[in-house]
């Protein structure tokens, strides 16, 4: 098992180096000169330009700049933002919990709805219920989530007034940041009303972000269940006279879950990509919105650092999924 993990880790190294090269190259290729951008509309003298260039290290050869970037990266230093002048790492870390909290609740919604839907559809295969559930999940899978978000805001926020439109918590509450997770911080502060407000603000964005993973999980659960239902041991369990509930829950679902868990783990990329759109619609102060702002402001170090960190997270989660899969299903270890 240890060997399996080490091999998987070693395989990540070249990919990660590739990611840093891409992130680094991206920034050199972005149109627009960051120094002229810093200088603003009034322009800048040639001396001041050279001075700034040297200060920011843009006058050195690209290879030196890349090695410098890599060394910094290994020390957890991703440079400073050109806009806020704060370290990119700090900027990222201060926003990451917001995205994680949103992604967690989105995944919770996706699993709580998708998994039962898939199980029910599989057990009632071919029925109207099966067709309806799979129709809904294919619709969810095809959903342009930026439109879905606007639609839900129009219905639940503007027309019915049930949910807030944007942000993480009502302006009535001020909560000290401890973990960065609004739901945890409000509980730590013992402020029950603030906790409820935070949950209230999470409902719509979580549904929007969780819609596509929900559809994927429902479809995957159904097809894995159908595969397992055809196995001999399920027939044996039925022949033994076990209740059909027991056959479904214990003998079928547990085995079908192996592939479903893998698929759930692989949703992290979907969630982070979806976070860009969801956070933009709901003004959610996470890394998706931060990246969009950084790209439009040509904040080179921020874009660069953000790309590397996000790719790193995706790779790490995929590795964990691989390992988990190896633990549950020893046949694939090699």
């Amino acid at each position: 098992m240890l060997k399996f993990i080490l091999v998987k880790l070693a395989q990540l190294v070249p990919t990660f180096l590739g990611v840093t090269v891409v992130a680094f190259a991206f920034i050199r290729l972005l149109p627009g000169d960051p120094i002229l951008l810093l200088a603003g509309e009034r322009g800048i003298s040639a001396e001041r330009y050279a001075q700034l260039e040297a200060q920011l290290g843009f006058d050195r050869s690209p290879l030196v700049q890349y090695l410098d970037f890599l060394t910094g990266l290994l020390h957890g230093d991703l440079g400073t933002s050109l806009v806020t002048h704060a370290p990119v790492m700090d900027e990222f870390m201060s926003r990451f919990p917001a995205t994680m909290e949103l992604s967690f609740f989105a995944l919770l919604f996706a699993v709580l709805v998708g998994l039962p839907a898939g199980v029910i559809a599989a057990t009632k295969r071919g029925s109207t219920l099966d067709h309806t559930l799979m129709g809904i999940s294919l619709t969810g899978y095809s959903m342009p989530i930026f439109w879905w978000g606007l639609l839900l805001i129009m219905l639940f926020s503007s027309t019915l007034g049930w949910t807030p439109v944007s942000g993480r918590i009502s302006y009535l509450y001020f909560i000290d940041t401890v973990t960065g997770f609004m739901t945890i911080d409000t509980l730590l502060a013992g402020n029950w009303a603030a906790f409820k407000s935070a949950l209230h603000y999470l409902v719509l964005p979580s549904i929007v972000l969780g819609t596509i993973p929900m559809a994927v999980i429902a479809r995957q659960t159904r097809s894995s269940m159908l595969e397992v239902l055809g196995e001999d041991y399920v027939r044996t369990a039925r022949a033994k006279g076990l209740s059909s509930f027991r056959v479904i829950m214990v003998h079928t679902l547990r085995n079908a879950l192996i592939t479903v868990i893998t698929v759930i783990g692989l949703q992290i990329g979907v969630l982070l990509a979806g976070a860009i759109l969801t956070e933009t619609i709901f003004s959610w102060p996470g890394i998706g919105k931060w990246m969009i702002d950084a790209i439009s402001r040509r904040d080179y170090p921020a874009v660069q650092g953000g790309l590397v960190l996000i790719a790193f997270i995706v790779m790490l989660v995929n590795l964990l999924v691989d390992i988990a899969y190896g633990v549950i299903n020893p046949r694939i270890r090699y």
Partner: protein
Amino acid sequence: MTTTSPVAAPGTLRHQLAEFWGDFSASRGALVGLLFISSMLLIALLAPWIAPHDPALQNREAFLVPPVWHAEGSWTYLLGTDAVGRDVLSRLMFGARYSLSIGAMVVVLSMAVGIFLGLLAGYFRGWVETLITRVMDVVLAFPSLLLALGLVAVLSPGLTSAMIAIAVVQLPYFVRLTRAAVIGEKSREYVTASRLAGASHLRLMFNTLLPNCMAPLIVQATLSFSTAILDIAALGFLGMGVQPPTPEWGAMLANAREFMGSAYWAVTFPGLVILLTVLMINLMGDGLRDALDPKMKRS
């Protein structure tokens, strides 16, 4: 004049096509999808003749006119107008041209390059395979939309760069599928026979192997087509795709967003068209998979 028997002989192309059509049309969803996409294609082609208005024409007397079924609606603007008095229906019809043609271009582009790289990787193995799969792993490490956004920012926002960016994001799926299929087919007897007969590398790759690897690629092509349409709209929505005043569906949504509270139609219809188009392509994809996947096929 030749007479053809109603049932073609097994093994012929005609027979295969008939069998494929039988499996495909067995799914009602796939047929509905095919019908919808065909009519969408027709609307896109005929847009200049059938659209009731010029999609760029701004009518100063008709800002945010509601659709025809409202009391204030008028028959001139069936689905209402946007904030500068442009006909929503006409813009949607012209928008179909952009979404469908960009989607098709993305699929052609990434399929061509992806098949080529996948064939190289699966056929030659060794360091060629390692290099190609590693590069594809790097592409896959970024969330697709983020990578596309970054690429568009590098290439400057617009139609062509959006197209290239989305094609790059779709590339790994074609490479992986082709590579896996080629590796599976390579050790089969017909390939060995062809090699012994003196076929060149290129001939083996493109004439012998590729036709037998097409089934999963066709299914992936429909999936990529729908994903491309979604991504194009997402980029347009974020202001990084097709630039206004071009009537692209995602950009239309972004423009209408400020008037969400007062003019739901300007937001609802472009999104609904995106959803329906993507849904129908996916329905078709499901039908194709059932018809082409030999594992699912009834014997």
